[in-house]
């Protein structure tokens, strides 16, 4: 991101002159208090919102200027874990996961096959035919992650993925995201949970009132960089 500013109407900007660079295959925490602009920053990447000023480069392409008709194709390469899950309550777990494949015209049997495979990876293949309201919060979160990953995206954006979970489930979800990252997917996690950042020691970007105030590469990340 280069000099990115986002303002809604005449209100004070939500994001002000953001400059940051996330490399392919990285795991990054985006932190800051509520209202700091974390969710808005993620939305600028998958174009749920457009930057008012500046450039947002995804795989070298400035998506801030992408035409409306190009947005679906960008989103097919970005998996998003939404804070409010966005699961359809009247569709089964497998159908929810397969949704991302349905929209690109994948044949029904392959959709089912891929959905079951990814559900197995998140440990929920036995709940494939269950409706989401029958699942626990942690299970629903894993379904959302499975849906985000079923397309094998290059980037995974997770907005407060552990926000509503107890500590045991938080670890479970975070381990899953680390596993996804280990397989080559770039992962950006927005969270205000300091303990999470402490525990996983990843590169951390801190936002406050729409401004990027600090960057901590994390002990483990720094160590890895030295080893490289």
């Amino acid at each position: 991101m280069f000099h990115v500013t986002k303002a809604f109407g005449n209100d004070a900007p939500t994001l002000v002159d953001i400059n940051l660079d996330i490399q392919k295959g990285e795991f990054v925490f985006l932190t800051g208090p509520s209202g700091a602009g974390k969710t808005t920053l993620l939305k600028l990447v998958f174009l749920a919102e457009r930057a008012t000023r500046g450039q947002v480069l995804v795989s070298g392409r400035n998506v801030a200027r992408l035409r409306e008709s190009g947005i679906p194709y960008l989103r097919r390469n970005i998996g998003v874990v939404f804070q409010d899950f966005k699961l359809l309550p009247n569709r089964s777990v497998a159908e929810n996961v397969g949704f991302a494949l349905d929209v690109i015209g994948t044949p029904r049997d392959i959709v089912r096959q891929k959905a079951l495979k990814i559900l197995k990876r998140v440990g929920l293949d036995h709940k494939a035919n269950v409706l989401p309201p029958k699942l626990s919060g942690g299970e629903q979160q894993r379904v959302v992650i499975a849906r985000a990953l079923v397309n094998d995206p290059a980037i995974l954006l997770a907005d407060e993925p552990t926000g509503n979970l107890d500590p045991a489930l938080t670890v479970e979800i975070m381990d899953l995201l680390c596993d996804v990252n280990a397989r080559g997917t770039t992962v950006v996690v927005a969270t205000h949970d300091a303990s999470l950042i402490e525990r996983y020691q990843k590169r951390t970007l801190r936002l406050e009132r729409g401004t990027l105030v600090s960057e901590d590469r994390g002990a483990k990340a720094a160590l890895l960089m030295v080893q490289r």
Partner: protein
Amino acid sequence: MIARASYFTRTALGGMWRDPFVHVVAIASLAIALFGFGLARIAGAQIDGLVSALGGEVELTVYLKDGTSPEDVAKLEAALQQRTGGATKVVSPAEALGRLSEQLGTQGQALTELGANPLPWSVEVMLPAQARDAESLKALSQTLRALTFVDAVDYGADALERLAALSKGLRLASVVAFAVVFLTTIVVVAATLQLAIYARREEIEIQKLVGATNRFVRAPFLLEGMVQGVLSALLAGAALWALAVFGAPQAAKVVAFLALPSGSKLVTLRLLLELLALGVAMGLSGSVVAVRRFLRS
């Protein structure tokens, strides 16, 4: 392609199944409009038939001056046959007097007291349906009047012009009425479909967030519009058929001169196909309007 078509069909039918009330309202509105259209078409066809039957007697009579040569009469007959396509008949003064006497009945006796036959020679043309146009008959009579041996021309101008005006007026009224019904129905269908779309807004939002194009989002709703059109056309067709089969004999009893044909002849295959095409067009138009408005917002 097949996978998408199958997905759209499943989504469309699933949507209709999950939210039946909205779709029933849309189908009922469409069916009522189509039923009205069908009734108007049937009534129009009957009125056309009636106008045609009333004009069945249309005849053009050319009265000739005394002393017209038989060659001129023969030429006139040939020209009239060619121009109108109708059969001609030369009526002598004696034959004309005989007819008049017959028409007058007992009072016709008075005609025998006339010294000389005052009636002229004339040529009668039985006009076929395609030659009954008031405008062209007016032009023909003017041409005939210009001939030196023609005394007068009569073709019931007033009656023909009135029938033509009536037929034209009815057609215009039915076009205007249909345009109003057509637009109103599209608005109603669009409004009901918008409710269906609103009920599925969450699903559409997620579809778009995981990479669905607008075309992909639109397709199942357009399909729903088409299915509604087909179902409403079937309903309207069935209702018209029932009305024709059970209602037409009752109507014929009350208004004897209508002489309505049997039910199956009133509701023709052509009319059913028109209902189907119109139903699909209206359902599709309604869903196009509704989805466009939703995607814009």
